[in-house]
């Protein structure tokens, strides 16, 4: 344990440097604003803001991205509570009891307790991150290409099975993502692949144009006619109104503790994350607590899932930073940014760059503290922000997207790439595909190919090498089971839906 304390001190030293503090604040602040605005999720806000990170040091850049990430999650809950519109998908659960609380005039309390629960959940998640990362990194140092390949397959399969409705559609998106990731020159031979003679594609499809197009542009197109805005409902958000009653405090502690545990667990698993963790926590609280108040403004229904959500946000960094394998699309983008900054995430980062790793971890904690301090006085501002109609906001959002791409590459060709990705993103969304597995495939594709080829090269073309170690066998076996289970589930689902349709026709 002494080692952990030393690491924490080292991390705090880095996190408290004025520059890092400043960027942490900027990240948290901008993240919260963007999270509050419906139609901008974590992915869009990270894609929007990460061109700025190219101008600063890698540590500060990461600290800022982390801040944007959990700041957005936090902001998302605010609009869920006040508007019944989740600002980010993972805050959908906050609508269930948060909005009824707001209707009962307890919006201030709900927001305050959300802040407290987020901070608590975040802290537990960070402790889990600190405790488990060095262990995982230490064992990951022994991993070879076959193990990494297996882990990546498992991560991608899990992401496409659990997160999206249809197994086959999820896998299709992963595969399309991998192919898109392969565009550009081949690392081994320099052969240009899938570039069709376009110079703009020689270095591959740029991750920013891809993410902004697929998430940003298509999100704006979807939201233009569908986003509701805050009505004339007046919320009492004075400091007095925010204070929870003593019984509300008592009712919140255990859900927060349980929620944090649930969140820490699901956050670290590939393919799951904040949304699933918060649903799990909600279900658990509903089973434990008095059910009649749930859905009508039970404080447990807000604090439990909110802790789970934020704990999951933190532990999601465990596989990303220790193995270099992102479990969620947000982590995939963060991984992409790290690679652009010249950091190849993996066990070596934890071992060789402890200042970066622990600095980042401790900055999460500092950032969560900032959220707590920042948001209590700022709640009134968020409420006013929510009253701005979306039709005044989306031209500015588009401007940020396009200018973000332009200033990153200084080249108008990338705006065309953005346009194509945006159109593609909207069409696949219309066809019922999820974009999350695509972005995971996109980031992992080139890494997977490298490990795939290296494994074959080392084994002399023997495919048995992919199953040579216990870890690889477990990963590939679990992937196969997940695929079968997912296929079975979606098949029975369809049968049920079809039967429902037949019954409805009568």
């Amino acid at each position, binding site marked *: 344990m002494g080692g952990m304390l030393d690491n924490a001190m080292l991390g705090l030293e880095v996190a408290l440097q004025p520059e890092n503090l400043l960027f942490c604040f900027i990240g948290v602040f901008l993240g919260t604003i963007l999270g509050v605005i419906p139609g901008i999720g974590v992915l869009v806000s990270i894609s929007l803001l990460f061109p700025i990170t190219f*101008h600063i040091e890698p540590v500060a850049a990461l600290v800022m991205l982390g801040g944007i990430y959990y700041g957005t999650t936090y902001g998302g809950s605010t609009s869920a509570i006040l508007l019944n519109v989740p600002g980010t998908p993972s805050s959908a659960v906050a609508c269930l009891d948060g909005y009824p609380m707001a209707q009962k005039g307890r919006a201030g309390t709900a927001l305050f307790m959300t802040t407290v629960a987020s901070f608590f959940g975040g802290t537990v998640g960070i402790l889990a991150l600190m405790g488990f990362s060095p262990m995982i990194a230490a064992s990951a140092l022994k991993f070879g290409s076959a193990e990494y390949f297996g882990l990546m397959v498992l991560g991608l399969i899990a992401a496409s099975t659990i997160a999206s409705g249809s197994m086959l559609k999820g896998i299709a998106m992963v595969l399309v993502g991998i192919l898109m990731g392969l565009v550009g020159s081949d690392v081994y031979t320099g052969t240009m692949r899938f570039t069709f003679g376009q110079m703009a594609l020689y270095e591959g499809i740029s991750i920013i144009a891809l993410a902004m197009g697929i998430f940003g542009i298509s999100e704006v197109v979807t939201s233009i006619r569908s986003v509701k805005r805050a009505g004339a409902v007046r919320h009492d958000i004075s400091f007095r109104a925010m204070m929870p009653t003593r019984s509300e405090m008592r009712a919140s502690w255990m859900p927060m503790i349980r929620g944090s545990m649930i969140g820490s667990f699901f956050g670290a698993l590939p393919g799951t994350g904040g949304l699933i963790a918060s649903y799990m926590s909600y279900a658990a609280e509903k089973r434990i607590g008095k059910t009649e108040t749930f859905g009508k403004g039970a404080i447990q229904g807000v604090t439990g899932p909110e802790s789970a959500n934020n704990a999951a946000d933190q532990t999601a960094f465990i596989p990303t930073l220790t193995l270099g394998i992102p479990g969620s699309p947000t982590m995939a983008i963060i991984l992409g940014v790290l690679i652009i900054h010249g950091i190849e995430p993996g066990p070596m980062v934890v071992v060789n760059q402890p200042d970066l790793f622990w600095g980042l971890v401790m900055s999460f904690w500092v950032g969560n503290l900032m959220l707590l301090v920042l948001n209590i006085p700022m709640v009134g501002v968020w409420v006013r922000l929510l009253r701005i109609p979306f039709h005044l906001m*989306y031209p500015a959002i588009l*401007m940020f997207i396009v200018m973000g791409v332009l200033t990153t590459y200084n080249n108008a060709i990338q705006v065309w790439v953005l346009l194509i990705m945006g159109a593609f993103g909207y069409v696949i969304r219309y066809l019922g595909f999820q974009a999350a597995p695509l972005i995971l495939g996109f980031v992992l594709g080139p890494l997977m190919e490298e490990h795939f080829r290296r494994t074959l090269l080392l084994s002399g*073309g023997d495919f048995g090498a992919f199953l040579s170690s216990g870890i690889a066998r477990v990963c590939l076996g679990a992937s196969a089971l997940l695929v079968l289970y997912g296929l079975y589930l979606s098949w029975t689902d369809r049968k049920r839906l079809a039967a429902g349709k037949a019954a409805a026709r009568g």
Partner: protein
Amino acid sequence: MRSYLNRDLMTGALIFGLGLAATLYAQSSYQLGTFRTPGPGLFPTLVSSLLTLVGVGLLLQALLAPVPETLPQFETRPFVLVMVAVAAFAVIFPYLGYALAVFALSLISSFADDQMKLTRKLVLAAVVTGIAVLLFRGILGVRLPVFGMGGF
């Protein structure tokens, strides 16, 4: 009466087509190598063959277990206008700089929603342009032409 030409089927056909095209393209254009020494074509060919298979699966699923459509409508007007707006930006920027490009982007995209009069749309576009120049030129100091091709 059952219509087979639904969105599910289109989806399956799209994935199948994409997979098949990519498989044929990859295996004919790039060297496959051997398993012992994999070439640049091997992995893309494997991945796109898998994609073709998934497409077959989606097609089978759509034909054997058709389900009612629950997906949202295609937002034609916002879609077209946002795309045209971004295209306008990409066309204008290299010649006239980003101030006018942003103005065009905002103005064209604001027609996707018809809640505002033209004068208000113009004001909005001007404000967004102002924000862009102030932020990217003034605060971030980005060295890209605000007006015209070079210089300023």
